[in-house]
């Protein structure tokens, strides 16, 4: 198999995670420019299956994958594996759950 040429972080200026309420984590990707945004969106490379795989969660935990053109952005919302600050939680604000997305391999 060919090594994928790109990772998502090669195409984005911002990749971040944050709670969207205590039970969801939302991941935002801002692409370098409108052209890159369209290229990724139109490639169909970002799928539920792929996101579930890099986060090692069931596909059903992926609540939403949305492209937001006005900001040349992609938003992915996941069910939190544990609610914010419940005993055993690791990241109350959810601000450090973005790295697997940075490493997402892309073949455009």
């Amino acid at each position: 198999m060919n090594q994928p040429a790109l990772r998502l972080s090669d195409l984005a200026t911002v990749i971040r995670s944050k709670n969207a309420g205590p039970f969801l984590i939302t991941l935002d990707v801002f692409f370098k420019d409108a052209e890159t945004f369209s290229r990724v969106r139109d490639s169909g490379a970002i799928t539920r299956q792929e996101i579930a795989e890099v986060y090692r969660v069931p596909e059903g935990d992926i609540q939403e994958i949305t492209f937001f053109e006005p900001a040349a952005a992609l938003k992915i919302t996941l069910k939190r594996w544990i609610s914010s600050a419940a005993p055993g939680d690791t990241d109350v604000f959810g601000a450090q759950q973005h790295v697997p997305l940075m490493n997402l391999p892309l073949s455009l």
Partner: protein
Amino acid sequence: MDEIRILSPTAILGYGFPVDSLEEGMSRKPHAIAVDAGSTDAGPYYLGIRSVGADGSRPGELADFFRTMSADLRPLLRAAVDAGIPLIVGSAGGAGGNLHVAGIAMLVKRIAEEDGLSFRLATIKAEIDPAIASEKLREGKITPLGPVPDLTAQDVDRAVRVVAQMGIEPFVEALRLGAQVIIAGRASDPSMFAALPILNGFDPGLAIHMGKILECGAIAADPGSGSDVMLGTLMKDHFVVEPMNAARRCTVKSVAAHSLYEASDPWHLREPGGLVNLERVSFEPETDRSVRVAGSEFVADSIYRVKLEGAEFIGYRTICIAGTRDPEVIGHLDEILDQARLRAGEQFSDLPLGKWSLHFHVYGKNAVMGPLETESFHGHELGLLIEAIAPAQEQASSICLFVHAFILHCGFPGRRSTAGNLAFPLSPQDIAAGPVHRFSIYHLMEVNSPLEFFPIQLGEVGQ
């Protein structure tokens, strides 16, 4: 009225703001200052507390937090009263329960007395009586919000406190009644910013969208900051946002990006009683430091629902912080922690099972992402946070001490450093960290009127 200007001094009351930024903001003659004072972001602790410590004379669980809020409130009260404009505070005291509202109202009155200010004060409560929540539950009028289990009567009984997020209407009503300072309980983030514009007949979609950007202070600017001032100017068919610190600017990119912030759906801003549809939104530069937004449309729901938030008390927490540099300890750490867990179970077998728990956060390995971590470990040192939770603080501390001592002296095959497995940076090693809660209620509740559960109380201060 052709335009209305709303000033947002800071993202959360207590985050602070530069004096010059507030001065610049006030020179633009805003029609109101509004500030958000709470969020679920920092966890359920603030919602679950039993005393706030606002009077400073007795220890309260939020005493330090209230001191920092007081430092922000004083110049804001002075600025608003001098300019004769309302100061509107929502989600008071971090969580917006009755004791949070009372605590902030007490601070406001004390500052007014010290600084010789007088005004009409409105407080708006947002706490929901458990009996009402139970009744609504029986009527089938409470539904989960997102991936949350259905609410049970037991959840309601066990909750320390339940608050509902008010929409814009209670703020509009308080302003209509002549309130100059409003201290409100739990409220949707944009509501305190959108209320005065909506009272004056401005478009609700634009007013709410502007509020959604303003509620974060200058986070939507570049460089962004939650501790700086932003001005929103609303006209008939668009609004303009501009940071008050000359070192920042709003760009189309920074403002458009903010539509995604902390929201699961960037196209639709969900609010009590409806949503703002951004499918036709446009962002354009107004000046080189400000951005013009148009096209945000409000769509009312046929049934008015408010968000409920409840916290359940779990126990008390004691923590211990340690590190290890020894390659053999690092290599055997998982089994040492398993043994510690096992031994603690035997040692504290008199404590009711399921009522206490032990958590290890191994920094350097998988403490940040837990089960989601995909990288395998490599490194020369590890941090360990030991966390014990039990029904009483002293029980949590006993467990934590037992566990840290066990790990410190635990033998394992091939151990060469026999004097101790851990390095502690602190003395004492165990730190009592107080009560622990979890969010047990995060649901939507149908109401008959947007004002139904948000009683407004008016009073004159300083007269």
